[in-house]
């Protein structure tokens, strides 16, 4: 393909360049204006004391130094790390399992796939509301159902040992259907001949998965891992769900780093400090993405 591309005429090349920038311009200008410029401004704020009422003072690295003595901040980093470590593998496993389950045709498969995806089309505002009702202490429907098992008095969102796990489970319920769709898309591209060949070789289900399905899914896996990691660290559930259901409690057990930064900025008016925290989080995300890239040996994103 690259042979075809390599046309010698520089005039045509220049025309192609101009056309390309023309195509890029509307979206490019929009992205710069509404994403890049605000982002740079936002990060720069980490170097200032900003109270949200128009008072600004240059603070150098003071905001970063303050982090050392902030025990709740470190707890929040811990909460986010734990959330990520629990959520990413569980969501990965569940959604891959679901994809394998609904991969081959059976009656009603469309409805089953739709049902599995359904939670994801509902807004987190509604999802948070719903689960708060279902998980009400003592009188909620979940406690009623689990009552006979001796779990009727468990406070799913009110016990610091359980609240984060509960949010992880809600998140998996919410997001697994979406990731399942991506895996399904990936699975459709695994060449059937490979399975046939494996069958001829006498491979069982596990060996087929291990040697045919899994290698073919590597780019999909990379995509899923990156998106769900970003989601867990800074995503919908990490903020919306906490905001709607627990407000970071009980006893900061669900105080994710994004929720903590949000509080610092919007409840306490410490915008500079919040920006500095976000700068750290973005840096961490970049590193994690790099590690995932290395682990999955790249997502073949830039094949050309």
């Amino acid at each position: 393909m690259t042979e075809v591309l390599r046309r010698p005429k520089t005039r045509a090349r220049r025309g192609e360049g101009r056309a390309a920038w023309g195509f890029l311009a509307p979206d490019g200008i929009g992205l710069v204006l509404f994403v890049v410029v605000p982002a740079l401004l936002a990060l720069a704020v980490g170097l200032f004391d900003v109270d949200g009422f128009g008072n600004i003072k240059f603070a150098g690295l003071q905001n970063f130094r303050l982090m050392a003595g902030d025990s709740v901040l470190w707890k929040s980093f811990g909460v986010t790390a734990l959330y990520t470590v629990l959520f990413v593998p569980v969501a990965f496993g569940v959604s891959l399992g679901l994809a394998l389950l609904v991969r081959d045709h059976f009656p009603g498969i469309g409805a089953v796939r739709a049902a599995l995806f359904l939670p994801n089309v509902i807004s987190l505002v509604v999802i948070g509301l719903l689960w708060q009702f279902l998980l009400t202490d003592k009188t909620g429907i979940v406690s009623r159902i689990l009552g006979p098992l001796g779990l009727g008095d468990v406070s799913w969102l009110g016990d610091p040992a359980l609240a984060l796990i509960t949010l992880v489970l809600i998140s998996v319920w919410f997001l697994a259907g979406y990731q399942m769709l991506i895996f399904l898309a990936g699975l459709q591209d695994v060449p059937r001949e490979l399975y046939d060949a494996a069958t001829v070789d006498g491979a069982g289900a596990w060996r087929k998965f291990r040697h045919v399905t899994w290698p073919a899914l590597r780019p999909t896996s990379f995509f899923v891992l990156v998106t769900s990691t970003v989601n867990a660290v800074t995503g919908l559930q990490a903020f919306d769900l906490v905001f709607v259901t627990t407000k970071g409690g009980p006893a900061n057990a669900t105080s994710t780093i994004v929720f903590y930064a949000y509080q610092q900025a919007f409840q306490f008016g410490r915008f500079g400090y919040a920006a500095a925290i976000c700068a750290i989080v973005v840096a961490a995300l970049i590193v994690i993405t790099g590690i995932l890239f290395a682990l999955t040996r790249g997502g073949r994103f830039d094949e050309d």
Partner: protein
Amino acid sequence: MSGARPWSRRAVFRAAAGAGALATSALAGCAPSRDPGEITFWNFYGPNGTPKSQADWFVKLADDWNASHQVKVRLRYIPPQEYQTGPTLQTAFSAGAGPDVFLISPGDFLRYYNGGALVDLTPHLSEQARADFLPGVLGTRTVENRVYGLPMEIEPLALLYSEQAFEKARLSEADVPKTWEQLLDVGRKLTTPDQFGMLLETAPGYYQNFTWYPFLWMGGGSVLSADQRSSALDAAAPRAAMKLWQDAVTTGAAPRRVRGKGANDSISNLAQGYAAMQQIGIWAVAEIAQQQPDFRYGVAPLPVPPGGKPATALGGWAMVANAKGRNPQAAAEFVAWALASLDDAGVERCRQWNTVAKTNLPARASVRDAAAAHGAFASGVMRTFADVIAPTGTPEPRYPPELYRAVSDALQSCQLDGANPAEVTAAASDQINTFLSRYEGAAIQ
């Protein structure tokens, strides 16, 4: 925002949200000029709020003002939760586009004052008008004898209990708890597989701290030392108050989560049978009367510790004017007109708010007298609130965020995570002392 879920910008951190305040302020100077002939009033009552009586009061307030003044007031309703914990107000302020008039709770007062966002209302208040406010209620809205906000109401906290729940547990009015020991004991007795015996706030926030302070004060404790230069939390009374809240949960008498809006929601919790006793404010009286009038309940002062004295906290929101708004003077004039007018219409307006649209205690003597003349406190629970409970009250302190947070973290880990009261109060004390050594704003009180 656009884009598919997993990457949507809405998704990836809400956190540093505020970050761009820098830009904000840098550029606020060249913001488009705004029409000074109109001022905006952001609130969480009306139009479109509930209950209708309160929304209507706000609409009428704006209409009355607009009928007789050049500068017009435009109401903007923001749902209560968004107003109180959402980003709307703060985003607007950081972009230099805050409302001209808004409502503020004591916990936010110093942040706004120290940020230079509040107009001095003193020039718009006559001597008599200031004197008309009940002793103490202007205190948390005053800095160096200048008034920066006017309270709309006084809202004391009390113990409400369900008469039906007491009857079912074969308890009588004589069993309504008067001491902490009785509170825990009766709470346990009222606990069934379907109902908690008692309910205290469990969600972290300003409201939870507010409801805990009375228990601190009863035993003679306080958050700060008398000179406000150091923490007073590392002491017996704070530890005991923490322990009480912990015991309520560990004995199973109080839930780890409340229902509905929160522990300030009487309907979802007390009236609908989630809890048999609930610590809540005077607003519950109107709430129950409007939404569940058949519900039978009683009101009692909050129980006290051995050797303690009765105490309660007095809540309430204040109306303030934005010093960085488009027309600060008109805004200040509006606030003074709305809540401090001495003429009959002004008194009647406040009486309507305090005892008709809502139930609470008026912040002004003339309004209290007018309400009393209408029999507002003549009988029943309102009389208990006015005569027995309110006199033991102290206004909600205006602690800045750092102070609030230290208390909140200690209370949360004690109440819900089984932490040792002595350890958490000592840690909170250290945090507060560090903060006080750096603090440079107005007196905390």
